[in-house]
């Protein structure tokens, strides 16, 4: 009897184990993709948040649209294109790498490089203009300074 209970339990566990994880996996996969796509879209109410992070009703409805379109088999690019066709590029939290948007992407690096070059040239000029000090041009040490140096050197011994 106990053996039979164990066998039934074993079979029940593994038949369900074969079904449940698959369902959960499908659900979490859609959830994860909804989250990933939603994080790329700007909430038009709380404009510094993605529709995933925003608590606004419109963001919630947009998340639902993302989920439905993913469930229909649309790709991330297709969903972004749909939202762009309604709201423009503004809806994307990360500007697309095309056209004038390259200015946004490359601008900081170009400015950093140009600034660095200018700084290098200015510093190099300053160094070139600063006269180098030769030993013979230095004034001789007086007795007081000589004595102090000797005392400090002795303190290290």
């Amino acid at each position, binding site marked *: 009897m106990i053996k039979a209970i164990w066998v039934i339990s074993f079979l029940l566990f593994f038949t369900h184990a074969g079904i449940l994880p698959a369902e959960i996996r499908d659900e979490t996969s859609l959830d994860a993709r909804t989250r990933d796509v939603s994080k790329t879209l700007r909430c038009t109410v709380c404009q510094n948040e993605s529709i995933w992070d925003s608590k606004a009703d*419109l963001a919630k409805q947009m998340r639902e649209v993302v989920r439905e379109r993913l469930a229909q088999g649309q790709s991330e690019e297709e969903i972004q294109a749909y939202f*762009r*066709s*309604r709201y*423009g590029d*503004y809806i994307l939290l990360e500007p697309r790498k095309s056209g004038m948007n390259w200015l946004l992407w490359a601008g900081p690096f170009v400015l950093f490089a140009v600034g660095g070059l200018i700084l290098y040239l200015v510093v190099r000029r300053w160094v070139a203009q600063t006269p180098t000090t030769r030993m013979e041009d230095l004034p001789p040490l007086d007795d007081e300074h000589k004595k102090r140096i000797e005392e400090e050197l002795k303190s290290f011994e």
Partner: protein
Amino acid sequence: MKGWHVATIVALIGIIGLFYAGLGRDPRNIPTVLVGTAAPSFSGPNVQSGEILSFDSYKGKIIVLNFWASWCQECRLEHQNLLAINGEFRNYPDFVMLGIDYQDQPGDANGFLNSFGSSYPHIRDIKGTIAIDYGVYGVPETFIIDSKGIIRFKYVGPIIGPVYSQVTEKIIRPLLEGKEL
């Protein structure tokens, strides 16, 4: 003056110009991408009767589409003007005015229309998909669609003050009379 002095001054003037141009703009005023494109189709229940209304049944007409909500204060400000627009043009056979009730409770929407009056159909946007299809940020927003189904005008905010005559005389009337905008 050396070359790099000139370049620095030009760059500074450019940056100041960019700031001046950018800071002078209203950050909430985002240009719409929908003007000049086909108006998305939709359907939904009439707020007052529950009857299903479809955008497609109004094809070939000049449509004024107003997104509103009972909780929106600016919608109250413009409501009498919307009724006046409908009153002014309703006798034109090619004129249709529609309201889209946005993120609202049916009872509240009905209460609003009973209190402030209603002379044209209002459709409930149950899941918010009509608003998203029209790229709506909030309410009120008004679209004017021509007889070919193309969005010709969009206004964000209440139709009050000088906007009223701009909408009626520069957009709706010319469209109804077949003139170019």
